[in-house]
């Protein structure tokens, strides 16, 4: 019985190590230069921007098509404005802006 107890206590040691390392990691992340996560975030943003090329151009053409269908005229400024609103919404949905 005692033997078993002693072994059990010993088993906690690696667990302590693991917890200490985790704290170490968190401390590292907190203190590490902002570059690390900034790079990731900027890359993510650029990735999202790339992903939005197609929806943007598709939306642009659908606006023109809609106008033709209704027999109305849509100016470049109106298109730009609507596309911007649309893409801004996408950015909001992706938590890039509020």
């Amino acid at each position: 019985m005692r033997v078993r107890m002693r072994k059990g206590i010993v088993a906690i040691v690696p667990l302590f190590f693991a917890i200490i390392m985790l704290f170490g990691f968190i401390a590292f992340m907190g203190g590490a230069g902002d570059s690390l996560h900034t790079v990731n975030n900027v890359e993510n943003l650029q990735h999202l921007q790339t992903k939005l090329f197609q929806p943007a151009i598709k939306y642009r053409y659908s606006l023109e098509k809609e106008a033709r269908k209704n027999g109305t005229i849509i100016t470049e400024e109106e298109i730009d404005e609507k596309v911007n609103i649309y893409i801004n919404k996408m950015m909001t949905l992706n938590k890039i802006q509020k």
Partner: protein
Amino acid sequence: MNNILLTLLLSSVVYAATTTTTTTFGNENSMGMNKYGNAIYNRTVTIKTDNYKVDNFWKKFSYSGEGQDQIEFESIAKTGTMQISVESTSICSIFSELDSQGCSGQKPFLINNEALIGKNSGDTITLLFQKNFEIDKVTYNDTNSSVFYPLNIDRNEKYYKEVPGNTKTFYSFFGRMFNAFLGDGNFFSQFFSYKVSDNSGKSVEDIREKYIANIVSGIDQEHLVVRGATLETDISQLNTLPVSLIDYSETQTTGTNGSCNLFFFKFSETSSFCNFMGGMPFISLFSSTTTTVEPEVYEIDTIQTDTENSLVTFASSFSGVTMEEYQNNRVYREPVIEASKRISIFDTLKCFIFRCSDPNIDEDTIDEPKDTYYTFNDPVNLTFAVTDLGAHVDSFQTFKLKSIHSLTGEARMCKVEENNEYDTWGTATFKPSGTTSKTFTNLGSVTKEKWCNPLMGSDYKYEWGYCRKSYYKTNISEQQSLKTPLEWLDWCDYAIDNNPVTYKEVCDESCILWFCKDVNCRQEANPIVVDGYTIKEYVKSSKRGMALELELVNLKTNSDAVTLRYKLMGTD
């Protein structure tokens, strides 16, 4: 204290730069055509995000508490080049129930590059549906600039085969479209019930369904024809895959009095067989040759019928035109006789459908071809394959289908013998080009009058009940009229239509000693005798041609009824 905090908070909200994203587009640059014949355009897109903020979540856990809560970037932008391909998927861009994978702008038609020489976007060309009537099959001529050829192109079965219980299949869609346009709920199902076969006698129902699907919805995305694709134009290899000329033979129907059951339109006029010369669509190459010996034979070129039916139905549905509107607004045009004013298409048409080079064809029997056409206000776009030598599909050209021309030509001849005692012309052969009129005696109104001859002096009419000697004099002057050859031809049509051919059995006799028996018995038609005239020979042959008036177009991103597809070409 609270107020100060609130003011600070509000001012930080008001004055803090918000994150905004702006999108700008470059100009659209035409990049020609892709390998499927779709127009392609390149356009740059720039997405710029200003005042982008990155929250630093981990900062809270740093040893020293150093590090920023948030990093703000003034501007982060990305520019990419998008390629936009423009495909004229007209019907699928209207009927959303169709699977876009089963549609494309490519149609199963081929033209020679000669047809496009010197033509630019906006120009119009007229092309005849090609059929070599001499041997009744499609033959390919790599320099003919005025024709288009039908193609057999493989197709994914699920986009044209009937799938039981599925109302959204292409097959049932086509059925609904045809039946709705033609106002006959059974037209489409009847369409395939006729026995149509290829040259080796094999059933071509599948090939026909596929061909119609390729015309109406375009070739499916899995089987798009690619520039450079091998093209089979060898007539011994027709209907072979993946891309070849298509051919199936005509249906032949024999009947005694001319059956119009094969046709959607059944004409009420009585003078000639089904009055197909009204120039109605949906009745294709149609030939009826009747002599007093052979039973009537009708031949229908089903490829041309299918092509015309499909194009008329599809283009009309696209434009929202009903069958009544289509018929009511069609323009009937007799050709101008003077050669100088003759519309060029007729020059080729006459020989084209009646093979002028054939020594067996008597040109005098041929009526001038007529043209009946409808022009669409809201035309569909069709992409045709273009070839140089017939070995490969070398490029593509997209057209607006401006009008569909139903061309009809007719050969007529009737040889009549007069067997009455009043006419004196014996036997005469009537042809449309003939100019000599012949007398026609209306026997039903011939009256005979009793006249007296009092031996001396002139005859006088029997009026007082007594003649020493009398005789009957036929008063025919009012019952006889002169009929022109065309009137005689109409009379023949009427006589043939209203007097079914009767047959008699004719046998040869084979005798051994004095025992004889009949051998080689056969049915021979009795000559048709009407009112004292015998029809010795009768030819009425109507041929149909079809021509399309096509305007060359460069598809643009703002064209009607197109599908735009997008592809990211690269980023900066």
